[in-house]
Structures are given as structure tokens and as C-alpha cells.
């Protein structure tokens, strides 16, 4: 903005000078004008920097204020809840209807109120770490609640979480509902999430929900499986175990993601490490042998690996089965090896503490974690989290996957990055 103001000023002054001295072209006056301008911009820049530096304590106090406010609100809500419980007991006693039934009725009343409030808000903003999940959920949700539009943003890893963080801490409108994997626990730690655990979550197993009720698993996904090009390698000759990948016949024929980028590109190695009993020596030996087979390191994520696998630049690759299944359905010559059990990742869903549409957000989250939302996800080849709803693809349901938690990923990131750089990248 500053830059534009200066530009605008410059042009303005020059035009003015030009008009008044066009007959004599008095250059010294133009010079004077410009030095004035330089002075203005210098003062401007100093003010700019000062404001930046000065802005931070005030932001800090805003955040503290916000926190205080939400604590107060939380206390009010808890008090109201207690009140409601007493009321229900009172109603049960007065009408003679059993307590359980009264509670169920009360839930229905609450839910109806939630719907009216949500419809009054008319909109919910959903950020999700996926390309196909948000439109599919939005479409189904909107057809059930036509008065509420779902506006969404699909994004990728650190970028989406960063956007959410920046937006909420700056106080500009952001997501009401957010769906992330490993980036979710840090959001809770930094107090950016709203505690909300709808009745739907009660039947979820404990590993698929936050013990404090801040988020629950929307879906799970498998990563780091071994995929192959069926045109190059017939099914019976495809590798069956991790050790099959060490066979010298695959030298230079395995595409792997660039572990230097960390994050999701290292989880398959972490899974292998866990499988080998977290024994660093054994793992290093395996990795060295794997590296001796000169895998092709592909920069970026699955977006760069899969097209090269399909075209046959390398016939084997570490990939994500959801994407492989999608390509397979379109007829592409690829498949993956279910016997090599890789990693199951959890994608959490939670509410923003500063949600601009809190009721619509609650309704959307309850619906997505309920029967209907979960079936929508199963229909697009994801692994639903709700007990009793199996994935439509049988191969995806398999047990025995390594579970690499977000915390494990975080704490082992540096170690694996170094192992990757030293052993895999070090291999010439």
C-alpha cells in the first residue's frame, strides 16, 4: 500500500510540476518536489516499521483478552448445562416420564434449535486437507439442509494449517470447521479450537477421538504403500514384502518421495522402522540395502510420483492407495500391494474457536461424523471412522497397519530426515 501511495504521490507531483513549468522546465523545482517526496516516504517507512513493532504487544493483549472472554463464555455454558440437567430432572419428576426418555426428548429439542440457529446463519466455512472430500460432503449436506451453504477450501498440509492459524490470529474470517491430519493437535495446544463433542461421537473408539473432546476422526487414509505399473510388472511378479524391494532387479526402478521435505514423505520409513521393532541398527541396515538399489527420488508429493508411475518412468513407487484406486477405476495400468502394510493416518475434524457461524459449524460437524456423512466418505473410497460403516473397498479395510501418530511424526521428524539425507541421498 505504502508503495502505491508513494507512486501515486510521485505521479501527482510530477504532473503538477509539469503543468506549472512546462514553458521553462524548471528542473530544480521538480528536484525540490522529489526531495520532499523522499522525505515523506522516509518518514512513512519509519512510521511503518514502528507500527509493525508496536503492533505486537497490542496483538498480544488482544489475544489474552480473547482468551479471557472465551473462558468466561465457557463457564457460562457449563453453568447453563448444569441448569439444563436440573431442568430435565425437574421435568422428568413433574411429568412422570422416565429420565432417559426426557433426556432423549431434550436432545431432540436441542437439535431442532441447533438447526434453526444454523439455518439463520445460513453458511458454514469448511477447510479440508483433501480435494474430493469437501465437495462431496458439501453437496450431500446442502441437499439435506438447503438453507445452509457450505463454502470450502481444499488445501495441502502446512499451507492450509498455516492459513487457518494466520487468519484466526489476525481475526479475519476463516474456517468454522477444519479437517487436518498431523497439524490438528498443535491447533488444540495453541487454543485455536472449540471444544465440541456431539452425541454422534460417543460410539467412536477412543483412539479416533480427542480425550478432551476438541476433535474426532472424520476419516482415515492409508499412505506409503507399494504400488506398481501392471503393464511393466505382472501381478504375480510384483514385490510382496518390504524385503522384496531389496532385490537387485529393481535397481533404479523404485520411485520414492523426497524425504528431505519431511512430513508425509517420511511416514513410510517410520512405519518400516516401527515394524522392525524400532531397532535403529536393523533399520539402518535395511535402509542402506534399499538405498543401494538406487531409488529414484521424486521432488514433491504424490502429484509428481503417480503420473511417472502410470507412464512407466519407474515401475514401482511408494504411493497413496486412495489415489491409486482412483486411477485404477479410470483404467490406468496401476495397482498396489495390500500385503505390504504401511501407515494408517487419521484426519481429524474440529471447530474453530473464533467460528463466525458456530451453530452451522456444529450441525455440519455432527452430520459429517454421523451415519450420513460417513457413508458419503465411504462412497468416494475413503475409510470412514464411524463404527459399523465399512469402507466400500475391501482392501482398504485390512488390519495390521502401523499407526504413526501425529506426535510420533513430529518427534521423529528430524531423526528420519537425517537418516534419509545421510543414507538415501548420500547414495550416488
Amino acid at each position: 500500500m505504502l508503495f502505491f501511495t508513494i507512486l501515486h504521490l510521485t505521479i501527482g507531483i510530477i504532473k503538477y510540476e509539469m503543468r506549472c513549468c512546462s514553458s521553462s522546465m524548471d528542473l530544480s523545482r521538480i528536484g525540490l518536489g522529489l526531495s520532499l517526496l523522499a522525505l515523506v516516504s522516509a518518514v512513512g517507512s519509519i512510521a511503518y516499521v514502528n507500527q509493525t513493532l508496536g503492533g505486537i504487544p497490542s496483538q498480544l493483549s488482544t489475544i489474552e483478552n480473547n482468551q479471557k472472554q472465551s473462558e468466561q463464555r465457557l463457564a457460562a455454558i457449563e453453568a447453563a448445562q448444569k441448569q439444563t440437567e436440573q431442568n430435565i430432572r425437574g421435568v422428568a419428576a413433574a411429568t412422570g416420564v422416565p429420565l432417559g426418555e426426557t433426556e432423549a426428548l431434550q436432545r431432540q429439542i436441542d437439535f431442532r434449535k441447533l438447526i434453526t440457529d444454523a439455518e439463520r446463519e445460513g453458511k458454514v466455512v469448511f477447510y479440508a486437507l483433501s480435494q474430493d472430500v469437501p465437495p462431496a460432503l458439501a453437496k450431500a449436506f446442502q441437499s439435506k439442509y438447503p438453507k445452509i451453504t457450505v463454502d470450502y477450501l481444499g488445501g495441502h498440509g502446512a499451507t492450509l494449517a498455516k492459513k487457518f492459524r494466520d487468519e484466526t490470529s489476525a481475526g479475519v474470517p476463516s474456517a468454522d470447521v477444519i479437517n487436518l491430519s498431523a497439524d490438528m493437535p498443535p491447533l488444540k495446544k495453541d487454543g485455536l479450537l472449540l471444544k465440541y463433542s456431539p452425541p454422534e461421537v460417543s460410539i467412536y473408539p477412543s483412539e479416533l477421538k480427542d480425550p478432551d473432546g476438541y476433535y474426532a476422526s472424520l476419516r482415515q487414509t492409508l499412505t506409503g504403500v507399494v504400488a506398481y505399473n501392471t503393464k511393466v510388472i505382472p501381478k504375480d511378479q510384483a514385490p510382496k514384502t518390504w524385503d522384496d524391494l531389496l532385490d537387485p532387479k529393481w535397481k533404479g526402478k523404485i520411485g520414492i518421495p523426497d524425504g528431505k521435505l519431511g512430513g508425509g514423505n517420511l511416514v513410510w520409513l517410520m512405519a518400516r522402522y516401527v515394524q522392525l521393532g524400532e531397532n535403529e541398527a536393523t533399520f539402518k541396515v535395511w535402509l542402506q540395502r534399499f538405498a543401494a538399489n538406487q531409488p529414484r527420488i521424486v521432488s514433491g508429493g504424490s502429484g509428481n510420483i503417480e503420473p511417472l508411475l502410470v507412464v512407466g518412468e519407474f515401475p514401482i513407487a511408494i504411493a497413496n492407495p486412495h489415489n491409486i484406486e482412483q486411477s485404477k477405476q479410470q483404467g490406468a495400468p496401476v495397482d498396489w500391494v495390500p500385503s505390504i502394510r504401511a501407515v494408517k493416518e487419521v484426519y481429524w475434524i474440529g471447530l474453530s474457536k473464533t467460528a463466525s457461524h458456530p451453530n452451522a459449524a456444529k450441525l455440519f460437524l455432527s452430520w459429517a461424523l454421523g451415519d450420513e456423512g460417513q457413508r458419503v466418505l465411504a462412497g468416494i473410497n475413503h475409510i470412514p471412522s464411524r463404527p459399523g460403516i465399512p469402507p466400500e473397498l475391501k482392501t482398504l479395510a485390512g488390519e495390521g497397519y502401523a499407526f504413526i501418530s501425529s506426535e510420533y511424526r513430529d518427534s521423529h521428524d528430524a531423526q528420519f530426515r537425517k537418516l534419509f539425507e545421510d543414507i538415501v541421498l548420500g547414495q550416488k
Partner: protein
Amino acid sequence: MLIYGSLRASSPLDPRGDPRITADNYIRVFTDPTTLSLLQNTLVYAVASTLTSLLVGTSLAWLFARTNVGFKRFFEIIIIVPIMIPPLVAAFSWIFLLSPNVGIINHTLRFVLGLKEAPLDIFSIWGMVWVSGLYGASSTFLLTSVAFNAMDPSLEEAAKISGSGVVSAAARVTFPMMAPAILSAAVLQFVQSAEAFDVPAILGAPRFLVYSTAIRFALEGKTTPDYGQATAYAINLLIITIVGIFIYQRLTSSSRKFATVTGKGYRPGLIDLHRWKYVVMVVIICYLTLTVVLPLALVLFASLLPYYDGVNVEALSRISLDRYAALLVYPNFDRALRNTLFLAFSVATVTAILSAVIAYIAVKTKIRGRGAIEGLATAPVAFPAVVFGLALVWTYLTFKVGIYGTIWILFIAYVTRFLPYGVRFTSSNMIQLHSDLEEAARTSGGSFAQVFLRVIFPLTILGFIAGWFYVFIHSTRELGASLFLMTHGNEVLSTVLFDFWSFGRLTDVAALSALLIFIGVIPFIFLRFAGRRFGRLT
């Protein structure tokens, strides 16, 4: 904001972060042994691709503007196409042509020459230079052909009368006269390849890193982005580019030397190549087929398929327009298309006008500090898009002026980012104008506005149009800054493209690229036509 960020120990937006101002990031960057190799890699890559694009781009521009080669209009369109292909897609289409295992050209060469090993490997520094050099050749062509067209050919004729041949006249008269335009193109190309991300990331990483890839990895590679290191790298890159721009300004400071459009009337005569004409045309056709038509055909071919598994007969049976149909129903696609079109037109127009004014001030007036204005307008070119986007996000989230999350933040980002390019286009053209023209107009009583609108503007319209077009194209594909600035509601086509990309939907990417090329070709054809008419009128 950027310098401040590089000095901070943590993200400037995180008020609870460590607020200390520290030089640690610089110490870390300068003492890291990989910094030297980064510097070396960046320079080798940027210089080599600049030279490639200059060599190819200017010779093509000279041939088309100054000789009687045939089918010029048709060729011109084809030469421009590469800048319309998003760099990400260009890099990938070259993988399919030149990769060691499935590259079509490699296959053909192996078959024809009877080789065992693939003769060429795209995953190398030379692959990177090749792709970005060819890419740059198109921009260089666009920039220099304007200057060649506006040149007074009488000097060339004089050289010929004094006995020099076509080649030596070109080498000793034409090209030196074109120095400002060629240098402009060189600076642009140098800076662009120094900051380009896609090509080095896809073809060079992880073994061959340059500053831009190192910056992105510092931001994305770790669970908590290392803003300090990224910005410190960015400042290094800034220094490299500023040195480049400074050298350029020194070289073109005596602009009168290059003024070849004077008040004297001239008739642009073309050089007759005689029998060489056909040889040259065959060379041009071969070159264009190899470098433009093949990758373009590959993109179009892939856009018709459900998946790309090489060029083969079976693939032909799967051809359909499904990918395009899928695009139309893709959620939020209409919004992204509207945003992109709006931005491209408005940004191109505003940038072209602003840069004409800036170029005029910098080139034609004697105002003190004019260099500073040009420098200020040129500075944003030195910021890698990613860092630029980041700096804007920080700025607009710190000072809430209500444009975050709207299309206007993208508008400001694009104008700031592309202004330097616009200025390069118009100023290299303006340097050619001799000041007798405006002095004549002014002595006859014309005001500043009149002189500018009625003398300068019509004479530099070709540069203006070329600049408009260049900015238009770049606005349709800008990704680096857009990724950081967009949120729900201000999506653009390039971010949709990136979505497809990161989920491996290659053929959707191809279909969207085809659409982007189409969006770019239409105004180009129109402008070339309009430009020619204008050129004749003046």
C-alpha cells in the same frame, strides 16, 4: 516486512513467538557450507538459461522483424505459446519427452542411433537450463521483436552500402543498437530463472538445489516453517537480482546512444535473404516443432485422456472430452474462471498504464531521482513469488484494511509483481525514441499530457501492447503468491491447477492448461492485429 522477518527468530505474525531481533538467521545462512553451492548453482542455472533464451529469442526476433522470412504471423503465434503453458506443466511435458526411460525423443534417438543407453537426461542441470531457456526464449522474443520492429533500418542500409554483408550488418549494427532491449530481456530472464521454482523443483531437486527451491523447502519441509532461514535466503537472492538490475542500469544510462527512432521519416525495409530464406525457414520449422509443437501436442493429447501412459495406439481409443466436461462441473470452477479473467484484464491494463508513465519518467525526463523510481518499481521482481506472497499476507494481516480474502489482495500482488516486467517492456521501447520528437511537440505548445498521449504513446504502442500481453499471460498463471493469498472466495485458475496437480490428476491439469493457453492465444491474435494497424497509422 521481509527484512524484519529475516531478523526475527520466529514468524512475525505469531505474537507469542520469540520477538527478539537477531542476525542469527544470516549467520546460519552464511556459515552453512551448502550456501556456497546454492549460490553457485543459482548463478550457473540463471546465467546458462539467460544465454540460451537470448541466443534463440533475439535471433528469431531479428529474423521475423528484419528479414523476408515467410508465414511470420503464424510462426509468431507458435513462438509465443510456451509462455502460456504453466511452467509446472512445461517441465512435466519435457519429462515425457526427454526422461531416460520413457522420453519419446530419447526413445526415437535410441532407435535411430542404435544406442543402448538414453542419450539425454532431463533430470539434470542441462535439462533445467533447456526447459527454462526455451521458455525464456519466448519472452525474449516478445520483448526484443518490439524493438526490432521500431528500429530505423537506414543504419542497416548504410552498413550494407559500405560493403558489409547481411550477417555482419546484423552483428555490428543491428544488435548493438538493440542493446537496451536485449539487455532488458537478459535482466528479466536472469531474474526470472533465479527466482523460478517449478522447473528446478521438478527437474533438479533434491540433488541440485537453487535458492528458490531451498526457500520453499525451508518453508514447507519442516513441521514448523523456518521463516527466518527462508527470508534470509530470499535476501541473498534479492542481492543477486539487484546487482543484475544495477549493471543493466549502468549499461543503458546513456540512453541517447540508442535513440534510433528520430523525427526523420523512415520506411521499414526488409532484408532479402534470397535462397537462404528457405534454409532458414526449414530451421525455424524444425526448431518450433521440437520445442513448441511437440510439448504442446503432448499437453493437448493428455487432456483428452482419462490417464496418460505414453503415446500408444490403445490410448487413441480412450480419447474423449471428458476431462473438459469434468472441469466445467468442478466445484468453484466458475468462480475461479471469473476471478482469473477479471484479474488478467484489470491487472494487465493498470500495469501497462503505470509502467508507461514510470518508463517515461525514467527514460525521457531529467528529473532527479528518476533512477530511484525505476529502481523502486523494479524491486519487486527480485522477490521470489513465495516470499512475496508471504510478505503480503503478513502485511495485510497486521494492518487490517479489509482486503484480505478478497480479489483485491491478488490484484495488488499481481500489479506490484508484474510492474517491473511492464516497465522493462515500455522502457526499452522508449529508449529508442529520440527526444527531438517530444521537444518539437513541446515547442509547438503541447502540454505534458498532450505530448505523452499524442506523441510518445502512439510511437511506443507496440511496447505497450507487448507489455500488456505479457502481464496478462503471467496473471493467468501466477501461482507462487496466489497460493498464499487465496482463501475461500478468491480462488483463481492457477490454484485450481495446483489442486489437481498435488493430487496427481495429470490429465485434468493438461485440460486446464489447454484452457489457459486458449485464454492467452485469443488476446494475442487480436493484439497483434490491432498492433499492426496502429503501427501503420503512426
